[in-house]
């Protein structure tokens, strides 16, 4: 008899209740149970960073945590970044303006990592951005435009204060 566990997760401010097997990864919960497919799954062993989400504010790999472990917790995914439909957040807009993506597969994970990073460090150096980015693999851009985008977002966020 497969164990099933009731869970309640708050994702981007909306509460979701499901009954799941303990072995269901949080990444699969987001994509298959509540149909938020913006969180991408790359390597599924914690190396690529594509599945990065924010758990209680902190960026973590959603492929390395079981959904049952997030019971009662608050999760932010890429779908929650934009202030409204048809708009982009400052960080997202900077990625568009600085050509910070090509195929875009890694982008949701990078946005979630960097949204937390810029809250913690609003005036980062290029080195600090590169360190913060080290847990997210991109196979298209060579990273320069991603770094440019993050620095552009940091500048815009400072100017808007």
């Amino acid at each position, binding site marked *: 008899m497969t164990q099933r566990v009731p869970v309640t997760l708050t994702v981007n401010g909306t509460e979701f209740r499901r009954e799941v097997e*303990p*072995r269901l*990864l949080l990444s699969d919960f987001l994509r298959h149970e509540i149909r938020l497919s913006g969180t991408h799954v790359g390597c599924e062993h*914690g190396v690529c960073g594509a599945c990065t989400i924010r758990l209680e504010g902190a960026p973590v790999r959603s*492929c*390395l945590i079981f959904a049952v472990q997030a019971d009662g917790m608050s999760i932010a995914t890429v779908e929650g970044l934009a202030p409204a439909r048809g708009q982009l957040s400052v960080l997202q807009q900077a990625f568009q303006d600085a050509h910070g993506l090509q195929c875009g597969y890694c982008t949701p994970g990078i946005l979630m990592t960097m949204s937390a990073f810029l809250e913690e460090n609003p005036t980062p150096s290029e080195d600090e951005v590169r360190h913060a980015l080290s847990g*997210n693999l991109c196979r298209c851009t060579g990273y320069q435009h991603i770094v440019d985008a993050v620095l552009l977002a940091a500048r815009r966020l400072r100017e808007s204060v």
Partner: protein
Amino acid sequence: MKPAPFEWHAPASLAEALALKAAHGEEARFLAGGQSLVPAMNFRVAQPAILVDLNRVAGLDSVVEENGALRLGAMLRHARLERDATAARTHPILAEALHEVAHPQIRNRGTIGGNLSHADPASEMPAVMLALDARFGLRNAAGEREVAAADFFLGPLTTALRPDEMLTEIRLPALPPRSGTAFLEVARRQGDYPMMGVAAVVTLDAAGMCIAARIACCSAGPTPVAAPRAAAALLGTRLGEADIAAAAELLRDEVEPLGSVQASAGYQRHLAGVLARRALLLAKGRAA
């Protein structure tokens, strides 16, 4: 859904967690931060029948200082320890080494106890524990025993933990006055496992003479590797460039790197010498 099915327990107390492990032994695995175990489960390399999830056990994540000595709870997450002001003051090598442990996202989940219990010989913190002469509190349902870090790491992914035991507390002795520490590594990319890493701790007397030294390396053998001969060679010297170069030369022969696709054993040995020299110089400067 990649991992094989398992039975999940999330006890709220340490006593409950230890009772579950006592009842199920090798069948059960403790789940701490999950940053090594869950990838292994996703690959189905690890297929534990029972997971005892420690993330809801209260009181296992404290940092307690007593006269410069530190007691760290096993479930302390890397990111928290990395930013802990007390640890930064008493044992700054912790944050210096943690900065090199994987990536920020991993450090937000990974725990110090889980990392040490996993006992990956390439991992930074086991070597740091040897250099700091750490002692570990290992508990089972019946009580606790204390084991020195030097006796804890037995082989790759193998420790002195018995099937019913959990590493619950890491105990770091106070660093004496005029001590300096440093951790340095070389990895292909930031956050990768190092090809070689060196942790160094030195203590000087008032006249600038070295009266204590400990050095340990990661990615240097089947376990974290201490270099007692190199450390002994430093005693009684003023840690001049020649003294340090001689110790680094000894250290090159004390490590037993296995070689990998990234680095031959010879190159790892070379790195060990270079990093030891740099780390000792840095530690000396910080001790003064």
